[in-house]
């Protein structure tokens, strides 16, 4: 077996960009778990996009109630049964996919953008600015994530938008530190010093030379974070913050079912299962990407 770090070159390969990607794809495909992750994520994304078209009773996610059909167990008409207001759980779970996925994406966008910006500024400018920003990240990291998100939604009010903002505000320090560390170390690279010596403007150096090298650790981190973001949103949904009725957010669906649990186990089990499968798939995908983009963390 080849020692870690050594790459086996194919004799027909030409050196350069395209085959690096080709190699990456091949390495990714070699891991069956990563492929499973990719497939499941694709299914979930598709479900999120098609949402109401796939749901047999889309009106159940928009406010319709059927008090006569409360708490029916899973059957052919209602694959996941009905909830405490007679709504079809399967439809609500399917339509809920777009909410959970959307939340994950937006949270990551907020976290990555804010974190990268502050991290780049901190690393690049160094000195007091760096100290200041790092202190702030320290403080934010010291407060437990859930409690901070709770407090923020309490101030701003309970809604999906505020939940996304709250979680994003909790996650940015991770990216900030990541980017800051990268920028700090890359600042010393010779090509950067060369660019500075030649007289390039600092912003140009930052954007053209340094940040592109941060992309791959950010992608790795973000793909692993997607799962965490979805879990955080579900936890807040479970606690009653986040998406409000009649939006069928998965965490809220589990929370609604607590009163009838465990007798009507289906209304809590399936939404929770959906969360688990989604997060698991993203974690598999993230692991696969990490193996490909950052082999040191691997074997």
């Amino acid at each position, binding site marked *: 077996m080849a020692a870690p770090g050594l790459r086996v070159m194919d004799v027909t390969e030409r050196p350069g960009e395209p085959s690096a990607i080709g190699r990456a794809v091949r390495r990714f495909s070699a891991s069956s778990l990563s492929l499973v992750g990719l497939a499941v994520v694709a299914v979930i994304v598709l479900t999120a996009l098609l949402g109401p078209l796939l749901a047999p009773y889309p009106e159940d996610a928009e406010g319709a109630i059927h008090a006569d059909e409360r*708490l029916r167990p899973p059957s052919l008409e209602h694959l996941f049964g009905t909830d405490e207001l007679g709504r079809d759980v399967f439809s609500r779970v399917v339509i809920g996919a777009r909410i959970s996925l959307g939340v994950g994406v937006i949270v990551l966008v907020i976290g990555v953008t804010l974190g990268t910006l502050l991290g780049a500024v901190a690393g690049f400018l160094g000195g007091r600015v760096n100290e200041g920003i790092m202190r702030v990240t320290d403080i934010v990291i010291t407060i437990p994530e859930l409690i901070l998100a709770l407090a923020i939604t309490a101030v701003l009010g*309970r809604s999906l938008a505020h939940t996304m903002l709250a979680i994003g505000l909790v996650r940015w320090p991770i990216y900030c530190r990541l980017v800051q560390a990268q920028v700090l170390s890359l600042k010393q690279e010779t090509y950067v010093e060369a660019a500075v010596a030649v007289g390039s403007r600092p912003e140009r150096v930052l954007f053209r030379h340094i940040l592109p090298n941060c992309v791959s650790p950010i992608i790795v981190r973000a793909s692993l974070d997607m799962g965490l973001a979805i879990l955080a949103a579900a936890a807040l949904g479970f606690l009653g913050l986040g998406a409000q009725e009649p939006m069928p957010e998965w965490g809220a669906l589990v929370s609604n079912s607590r009163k009838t649990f465990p007798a009507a186990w289906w209304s809590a089990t399936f939404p929770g299962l959906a969360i688990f499968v989604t997060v698991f798939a993203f974690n598999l995908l993230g692991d696969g990407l990490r193996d490909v983009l950052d082999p040191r963390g691997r074997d």
Partner: protein
Amino acid sequence: MAFVRLATAIVALAVGAALPCSEAMALEKKAVLIFAGNQDMPNVDPAVTPMSVYTASALIALYDPLFMYRGDQMLPHLATSATASADGSEWTIKLVPNARFQDGSPVTAEAVKYTFERILRIKKGPAWMWLPIMDEKSITVIDPHTLRVKLTRPFALFDRTLPNLLVVNPAVVKANDKGDDGQAWLVAHSAGSGPFKINEENWRNGAQYEFIADPSYWKGWPKSGRLDGYIWKIVRESSAQKLALIKGEVHGAQNISPDDVDELRKSTGVRVEQYPGVSPHRIVMHNRHDSKYLADINVRKALAYAYDYSAVPKIYNGSAEVSKGPVPPALPGFAPNLPLYSYDLDKAKAFLAKSPWPNGGFEIDYVYPAGFDIAKNLGAILLAGAAKLNIKIKLTPMVWANVLSMRTKSETMPQSISLWLAPLYGDSDALLYSQWDSDSWGRGNYSFYKNPKVDELLTRARTSLDPKVRADLQAQAQRLIVEDCVDIFTGVEKATYVWRSNVKGYVHTPMRERNPLFAEMWVE
């Protein structure tokens, strides 16, 4: 190898954890009743914690009230009588001669005076009932067992508030007074005359509270049997309460959800009791909001006719009844045969057509207390019905503190809110005056309703000592409230108790819906 040893240890632990636990660790064979409640009792000072829905049991275990509700009646307890002067402004209260505090000293009129004045001084908890009608000079002690109360305004229902007066032992309170009227000490200590004492070793906040019976209680105990004590155990989830009941880990519970009741009915060893409730739910409509939408009676009537009332008992799984008006039938003064609304979409559309918005097209905020799924679901019924009128209902959970601060002004009060109200004394007036009298604007009158005729009827009712006259006036007021379609009256939840079959002595008392009187119960 070290690893193998470690693995063996883990397996052993896992197997051990799975073995059933022997119940042979019950402490001593004593008749201790364990009751599963879902509310904490962090503070048992009767001047700070009112006899509200969740604390009454503890308070009447440690203290005695002047009058006690039992079943449908208000019976003499520490007081034998409370008689009013002709105009209802002066009352004479006579006490029983043999009542004693737990330290042996007698319960005198002096103690009652001290109790009243302490409440008026501290101005918390139950003080709201007496602050508007009494002051420091109101009470005079006539003799050790008689006192006279001179109200600052006539109030015919003064005696109805006396079941909330829990008498404290002045000597004990003063001995533990750190300049705060003993508040710090009374949080977890008792200075009462009641049948139970606090077991300080097993008074665990958030987990359980143990009460020990006092065999020398002045009123004595029922001949059929009594408890040695009881434990109020905090079990928050209904499903956990249900399981504990089935397994016999608790003897009774009162927060069982309507869906769990079904399973309990089918279980052996358990007895389900349901009674008509006294705490109605309604959807408050802000009658004056922005002078728009709900301010128009036609819009209100449209929504009242678009509400599927039959869904209410269904979502309560049979444990609730549709409201028959603003006041629940179990409360004295309830007026039958009111012109109620029903689920009739044609009528709803007809009324909406008479408003400036015949095709709907607007949004109404429905605010409900965060965490109360039933409130949300009652709003979901409105949402589904209003959607058929092209009116969008926005379900908005809110921390109740927000709502209370918003209700102080008409401009800040939300368009509609979900509201439960428990009557705090045994008369329709408890609901009517606080909710629909214009005096209560900024406080209990969430609807900001003002009808001078209703005001006049209620004032006359509050000063009529004749119950029949009072009931008639109150009935007229209720009729007007319904005709003005002030709010949507949804349903009244039944009071549900589940006991193990060997628990005896429970007498349902509507005014203490969720709080048993443990002093008269026993376990066979």
